């Protein structure tokens, strides 16, 4: 279990670096899909079975297919490498180091004592479909219905935004 976690974590970090560093948008996309599949393995290891399945179906399946579709539609190729401005690079590196040291140091100290306490799996907190579905339809009924309204609004918004507007930008006027 331990060695499994470290292998998956290492691969997930490598895939995340691949998303940021690869020159082709399509390679970034494939790295992100790999990262999401590895995270779904971790979810399964954390007894969140429903979320592991939903991660594969919704994220790696639906959302990334949409991204691949847009990349193909725009026929994007690699961008030419522009050097990162020095000031921006210094700023980003400093904030990354600051964030990590702020998060990781207290994390290590706080959870070192907690980690050993809950070693066995509590059967009441296994996130299977039955338990999460019951919670969604009782305790979280209103947010669930609101989410459906949000999705409907997103569908309408996407159609309106992506539709060709014949009179909005006459072709000769721009540029």
């Amino acid at each position, binding site marked *: 279990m331990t060695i499994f976690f470290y292998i998956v974590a290492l691969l997930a970090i490598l895939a995340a670096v691949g998303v*940021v560093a690869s020159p082709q948008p399509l390679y970034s996309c494939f790295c992100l899909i790999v990262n999401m599949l590895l995270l779904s393995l*971790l979810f399964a290891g954390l007894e969140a079975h429903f979320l592991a399945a939903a991660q594969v179906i919704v994220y790696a399946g639906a959302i990334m297919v949409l*991204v691949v579709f847009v990349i193909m539609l725009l026929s994007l190729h690699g961008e030419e490498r522009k050097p990162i401005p020095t000031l921006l690079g210094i700023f*980003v590196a400093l904030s990354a180091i600051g964030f990590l040291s702020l998060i990781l140091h207290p994390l290590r100290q706080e959870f*070192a004592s*907690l980690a050993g306490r809950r070693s066995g799996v509590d059967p009441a*907190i296994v996130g299977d479909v039955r338990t999460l579905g019951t919670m969604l339809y009782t305790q979280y009924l209103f947010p669930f219905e609101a989410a459906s309204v949000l999705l409907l609004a997103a569908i309408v918004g996407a*159609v309106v935004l992506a539709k060709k507007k014949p009179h909005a930008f006459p072709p000769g006027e721009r540029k």
Partner: protein
Amino acid sequence: MIGTADYLTLSALLFIIGVIGVAVRRNTIVVFMCIELMLNAVNLSFVALSRQLGNLDGQIAVFFVMVVAAAEAAVGLAIILSVFRAVQSVETSDSSELRG
């Protein structure tokens, strides 16, 4: 034994890689994918803390994050498409006409 701290450490690392990507990359679609990476990192820490605290509210939160991410993907990619139609590019520096 893998503890919650290890999951949270991995989550923080993935999140900061996403932040670096958003700050450094110019391609709008890659920036979008880095945002998805950050959402995934937060989902991992939600699930790990849900396990640690022994209740399932964190997993419900992850479910809603997924719903919002799907809505965001649809609208965001539509915006990228319509910007591409207007300026023939997905570079962030090419769509700066609104800058004062």
